[in-house]
């Protein structure tokens, strides 16, 4: 019972207190993962490796399995077969969503998902790691260290002026940044970012690109995005998903020459843009 009460945040299930073991330069391993929904193979024998500190873009037509892949990494969907490891040692398939969040994987949803009736500061406070034990939850005050941590993130996401405003009245782009800020409060090693620039103005897109680029290196960042211009502006490496498997991987300019990629995606995509 005491375990139950104190463990509202899944930290009791944290398999390892030591940091994630990315010694081989790979932070995330997906190997031969398959998911079937009612006979439809949403993910079909997918293998994908994300390097430590890498910024990777994932593109692909609708239904290629991009969001399902994120669901698997974050524990929302359990695959039928395959292996998903975080670093060398952490088997993500054995963990549920809160536990996965606690080992250091943050996820930004496609639609900005911030808690609208709370202020920007309160949203960040909510996301703060380490505050989630019951005793930490039953308090109304912030420590100085926590305050500094929030201020640093506010600064980083460009909302330093807006800390006291309600998240609900922020502009669309600001909400997206706030959500990224919430992920940063969790001190993750891996950020999964689903369509960060959908609906953004060009200026907002530039700032978002800058933000994500600044996060790479100290974090691994996986961005799912449709906007080719944006992908070009941020990614070192791009993976093309198609029908639940990796169709091609490489630099965007190489991929744009690849006839199979042009066939399933880029050709059609460019025609729209």
């Amino acid at each position, binding site marked *: 019972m005491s375990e*139950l*009460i104190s*463990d*509202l*945040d*899944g*930290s009791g299930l944290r398999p390892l207190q030591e940091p994630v073991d990315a010694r081989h330069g790979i932070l995330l391993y997906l190997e031969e993962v398959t998911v079937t929904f009612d006979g439809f193979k949403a993910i079909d024998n997918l293998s994908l490796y994300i390097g430590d500190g890498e910024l990777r873009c994932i593109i692909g037509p609708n239904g290629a399995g991009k969001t399902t892949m994120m669901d698997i990494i*974050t524990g*929302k969907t359990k695959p039928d077969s395959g292996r998903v490891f975080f670093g060398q040692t952490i088997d993500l398939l054995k963990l549920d*969503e*809160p*536990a996965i*969040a*606690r080992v250091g994987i*943050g*996820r930004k*949803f496609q639609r900005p*998902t*911030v*808690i*609208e*009736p*709370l202020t920007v500061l*309160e949203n960040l*406070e*909510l*996301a703060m*790691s380490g*505050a*989630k034990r019951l005793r*930490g*939850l*039953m*308090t*109304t005050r912030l420590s100085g260290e926590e305050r500094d941590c929030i201020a640093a993130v506010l600064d980083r996401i460009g909302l330093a002026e807006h800390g006291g405003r309600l998240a609900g009245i922020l502009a669309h782009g600001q909400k997206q940044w706030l959500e990224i800020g*919430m992920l940063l409060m*969790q001190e993750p090693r891996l950020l999964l970012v689903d369509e960060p620039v959908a609906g953004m103005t060009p200026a907002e897109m530039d700032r978002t690109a800058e933000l994500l680029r600044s996060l790479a290196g100290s974090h691994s960042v996986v961005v799912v995005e449709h906007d080719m211009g944006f992908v070009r502006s941020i990614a070192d490496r791009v993976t093309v998903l198609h029908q639940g498997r990796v169709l091609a991987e490489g630099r965007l300019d190489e991929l744009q020459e690849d006839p199979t990629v042009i066939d399933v995606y880029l050709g059609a995509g460019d025609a729209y843009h």
Partner: protein
Amino acid sequence: MPLPPWLLSDRAGLVLLAVLALIGVGVPVLNLLVPPDHPLHLTAYTVTLLGKYLCYALLAVAVDLVWGYMGILSLGHAAFFALGGYCFGMYLMRQIGTRGVYGDPALPDFMVFLNWKELPWYWHGFDLFWFAALMVLVVPGLLAFVFGWFAFRSRVSGVYLSIITQALTYALMLAFFRNEMGFGGNNGLTDFKDVLGYPIHADATRIVLFVLSALALAGGYLACRWLVSTRMGRVLVAIRDSEDRARFLGYRVERVKALVFTFSAMLAGVAGALYVPQVGIINPGEFAPLNSIEAVIWVAVGGRGTLVGAVVGAVLVNYTKTWLTGALPEVWLFALGGLFVAVTLLLPYGLVGLLRRRREAAV
């Protein structure tokens, strides 16, 4: 002693507490000290009626905590209220002793009537006040916890959860209607004589029960207000507005839900326990699904997610009910239904929300 900041910033709550303090002192004075022929004299009937409203208000606060802040629309909260009421009713039954119609020292009248020879095991201990008082918290709390644990772990939410809570209270009503359950069946528990040795119908006892109800409401309000002002309160709002977001931030949503649901059920249990000695009866009708729905309407009318609104709504709607069921009894259910429709359409944040909007518009 200076007020903590979470209370200081809650102006509506301070007004509520002041009103409770005022009636907590004023009602006893007007009942006991003002002579009966004086126009300001409050009759025992009025005192009991007000006490009943306060119990309903506490139930409404419990509903608002889970519905307004955590997004769980419980259509079965009256079940926890009734269970608390039954637990305290069992204590009151045991207090009757040999003064019952059949004069059996241990068995309540209805058991003698059913030809039972000894007290069922679950009636043991209820002759002790402290045990019964503990059970008032434990029984509703345990049911809520077990129910919540399974429902929330299976990720049952939204309208499905509401329907299950409704089924829960309906099932309990059918069970308590059965004589074999040992809770007096259809008639429930009644004919109470005294509580802790004080005659239950005496004016002074009624006043004490009234004051205790006011204190319980104030305490319940403060506990909920404090809870929602902590970080935990922000977690509740996050769960209400975006359960997935909360989960991917690392919160064990189902555990938070189960714990807060349990706490809320305990508050409802306390409300029921204070209600029973004042109205003098508890029967399976208290489990009726309509009662739970009414509680939700009180909260909707007052303004959900405000706590103060729950109190305002409970008192206003019940006052209307008292008046209307006296003046035009056949109209009441139509009025209740109409009220709910009107509030949903016109006042999504209830009366408190309306006042807030007025004030913000004026600024």
